[in-house]
């Protein structure tokens, strides 16, 4: 090391020695604090001359933080860091004396760790019981963010959980204001969020949580009555906090809670409740005894383990592959020929366990729909309050399980449908009374599994759809003309056409002609369908039908020429062989056959998909009778190979979606089979072959 650098460095070291000692005892010693700066600046220069650019930057950063901290005392962390810097300098000096390379590796943390501390000094300094104190914006400071991302992720997850639980508890409390346990739980949730957000320096959040906690404290001590307004305030606080949690980023340290909310909370604490409610609020008679489907809120807490979604997906994929590998092994010819009894027994055991694993795996993907439904409670409550309409929400089939991927995606359509009912369906109390209907409207959301689909319905006993009004509106919007002839059902369907709206006034989301057509598209995007049934004056019911999309399906493997096609067994009724008398043609282009006294149209898969070498003689082929939408259809294939469970693999990468195909799968032989989408096949057949509307016998044709 050059002599000059050596002298500089030793000089700096002795200064640092002195300064750190002073600041240890007196962290607010102003003179020392201001002397630190030039010392460190010199150090930075020294470092860069010695080619320690990282350390040079670190020193400069520290200086910047000192600048921003202004006159505030040195935090323990700041002191630590200073100590580390001092040790670094000491090490370099020593190494030089001992003529060895300095051990700088152990100081690597210096370059990353040096950003945190100054902001914490504010968090410490601000007294948490004075809610109005605003943190100074620190422009330069990278936030407390280099706290490992893991810690932060955990915070977000936990805070979200706590806050989510609040909503359910508040709603429960509204029904049972005496429920102290719920009240305590809410208090604890806010308390925890207050604490942890404070730790991270998220002052805005902490402040909000704190004021809410104050309110809750008064409530649980019985000093304030628990009423709708208090509940609403708490829910709003929860919303605000949740939003702040989800937007956590480097700016969060400066994020402020909405001031008006804080004001209202404080007012509430003083007993001045009632500043926030809409004036026309009907008292909701607590007819909660009439909600049968409300499962016991205080359900037994089954032990729950949190698992990373990625791991779960990986697990399921692996189980899927295991199933296939196992079936390849089990089917192997040599096994059956040569294996001894013991091995066969082991193989059977393997098969059995694999099947169980598979069932388990399928069930892992399924979650009860209850979570989604519960969210709707809040929505109905809020909408009810806003519109002044009294609505009772009935939830049925909450335990129905759906694929976890579906859960997110049906939330929006459900919300739209509920808004629709609340805004346009339900009449206000007087109208209802005049119509001899119970004043409180009834909204039923039900879920059920039938066949291979899940049905979710939203039904209201409101005023129903008025065909004439709809028709007039559609004509006005140019969707149909005067002459268009529509059945009542078709007229009702207009409500789901894009750009349609009959609301006199535009409310929040509904009424802008956006809701229902988006719902329709979303549902169709999930490969489902939506139907509606409405009676003027009595109410409307929307029903969504969604496929139970599991990754593994039961399939019937069939062959046409040397191609393999898999038919979901859920749609397969039977496989038959045609003979002379049952098969005939219609109008010379279409084919049909007789099945159980019905005439069923027949489609040749080979023709549909241009498969060369497909069996042409129906008598030598097989016809699979399929059911779709209540109609029967026969699909002709060369051979039926048997049932197999397969893992669905999407085709939609470079191979664009082919009409009639739902995906592909790897058969036990290792070959790829294509999975047929029954509805798609029928549609494809319809566009190429006409399916006769009325079953009539034509003359038999060979």
């Amino acid at each position, binding site marked *: 090391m050059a002599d000059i650098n050596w002298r500089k460095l030793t000089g700096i070291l002795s200064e640092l020695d002195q300064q750190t000692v002073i600041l240890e005892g007196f962290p607010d010693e102003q003179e020392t604090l201001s002397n630190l700066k030039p010392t460190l600046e010199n150090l930075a220069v020294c470092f860069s001359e010695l080619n320690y650019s990282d350390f040079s930057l670190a020193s400069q950063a520290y200086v910047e933080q000192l600048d921003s901290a202004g006159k505030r005392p040195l935090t323990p962390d700041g002191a630590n860091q200073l100590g580390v810097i001092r040790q670094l300098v000491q090490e370099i000096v020593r190494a030089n004396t001992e003529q060895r390379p300095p051990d700088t590796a152990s100081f690597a943390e210096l370059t990353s760790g040096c950003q945190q501390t100054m902001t914490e000094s504010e968090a410490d300094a601000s007294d948490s019981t004075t809610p109005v104190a605003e943190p100074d914006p620190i422009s330069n400071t990278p936030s407390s963010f280099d706290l490992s991302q893991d810690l932060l992720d955990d915070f977000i997850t936990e805070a979200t959980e706590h806050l989510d639980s609040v909503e359910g508890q508040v709603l429960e409390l509204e029904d049972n204001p005496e429920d102290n346990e719920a009240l305590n739980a809410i208090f604890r949730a806010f308390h925890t969020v207050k604490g942890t957000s404070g730790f991270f320096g998220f002052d805005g959040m902490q402040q909000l949580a704190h004021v809410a906690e104050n309110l809750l404290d008064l409530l649980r001590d019985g000093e304030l009555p628990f009423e709708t307004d208090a509940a609403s305030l708490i829910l709003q606080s929860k919303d605000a906090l949740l939003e702040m949690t989800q937007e956590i980023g480097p700016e969060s340290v400066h994020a402020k809670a909405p001031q008006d909310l804080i004001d209202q909370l404080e007012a509430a604490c003083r007993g001045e409740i009632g500043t926030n409610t809409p004036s026309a609020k009907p008292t909701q008679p607590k007819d909660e005894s009439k909600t049968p489907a409300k499962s016991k809120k205080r359900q037994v807490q089954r032990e729950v383990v949190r698992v990373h979604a990625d791991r779960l997906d990986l697990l399921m994929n692996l189980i899927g*592959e295991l199933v*296939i590998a196992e079936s390849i092994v089990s089917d192997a010819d040599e096994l059956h020929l040569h294996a001894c009894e013991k091995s066969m027994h082991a193989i059977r055991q393997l098969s059995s366990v694999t099947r169980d694993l598979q069932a388990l795996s399928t069930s892992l993907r399924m979650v009860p729909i209850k979570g989604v439904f519960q969210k709707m409670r809040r929505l109905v409550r809020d909408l009810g309050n806003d519109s002044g309409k009294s609505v009772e929400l009935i939830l049925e089939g909450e335990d129905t399980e759906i694929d976890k991927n579906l859960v997110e995606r049906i939330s929006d359509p459900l919300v739209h449908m509920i808004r629709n009912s609340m805004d346009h369906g339900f009449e206000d109390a007087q109208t209802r009374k005049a119509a001899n209907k119970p004043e409180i409207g009834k909204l039923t959301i039900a879920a059920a599994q039938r066949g291979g689909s899940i049905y979710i319905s939203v039904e209201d006993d409101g005023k129903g759809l008025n065909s004439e009004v709809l028709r007039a509106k559609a004509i006005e919007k140019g969707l149909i003309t005067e002459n268009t002839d529509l059945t009542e059902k078709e007229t009702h369907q207009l409500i789901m056409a894009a750009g349609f709206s009959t609301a006199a006034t535009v409310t929040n989301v509904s009424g802008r002609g956006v809701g229902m057509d988006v719902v329709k598209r979303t549902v169709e995007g999930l490969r489902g369908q939506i139907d509606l049934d409405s009676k003027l004056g009595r109410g409307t019911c929307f029903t969504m039908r969604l496929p139970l999309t599991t990754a593994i399906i039961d399939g019937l493997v069939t062959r046409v020429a040397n*191609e*393999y096609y898999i038919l979901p067994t859920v749609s397969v009724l039977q496989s038959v062989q045609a003979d002379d008398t049952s098969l005939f043609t219609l109008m010379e282009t279409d084919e049909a056959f007789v099945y159980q006294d019905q005439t069923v149209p027949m489609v040749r898969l080979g023709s*549909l*998909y*241009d*498969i060369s070498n497909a069996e042409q003689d129906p008598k030598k082929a097989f016809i699979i009778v399929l059911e779709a939408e209540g109609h029967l259809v026969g699909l002709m294939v060369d051979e039926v190979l048997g049932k197999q469970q397969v893992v669905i*693999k999407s*085709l939609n*990468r*470079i*191979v*664009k979606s*082919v*009409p*009639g*195909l739902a995906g*592909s*799968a*790897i058969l036990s032989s*290792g*070959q*790829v*089979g*294509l999975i047929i989408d029954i509805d798609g096949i029928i549609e494809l057949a319809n566009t190429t072959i006409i399916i006769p509307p009325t079953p009539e016998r034509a003359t038999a044709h060979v």
Partner: protein
Amino acid sequence: MSNDTEINHQVPEPGEYLVFKIGKEYYGTSISLVQEILGELEITRVPKCPEHITGVANLRGKVTPVLDLRLCLGQVATSYAQICTVVVQLVLHGENTDLCMVVDDLPFVVQFDADNIEESPRLKNSENAFPLRGIGRKDGLIVLIFDPNKLAQLDELESMTECSEDEGTASAA
């Protein structure tokens, strides 16, 4: 016209390229995209697909699409010297996807330096879909360099169906 801007304004980078023969010409792609090279795979035909998508294959449990590059280029499918499959990994819609490309004969690696690579000349049919990125020349070998990602994207836009109907005017001479 828009194809021009897309294709030609970035000369391929120097480095190693995997070169394979298609008909009488040599095509190449950056080796960083190549996952593996296999022999002939069993291909399952997928109906209602453009001709150059010969189907899908089972690649260690993954159903992977297979592209026949000669058909992509509009060449007539005569017999192959030795069918090989080059598996490349693409990024489509932000996801990693594999693609199998069927080529004539065994591929080999060529190192191109900056002096050996240049922009591809303007093609007569600039609407033509095949996305040529440049030309590499070394020791008498002329390699037409392309990016499989672009190939796959074009596919999605269905412009490749025109490609397989063009006869021979597709590639630059």
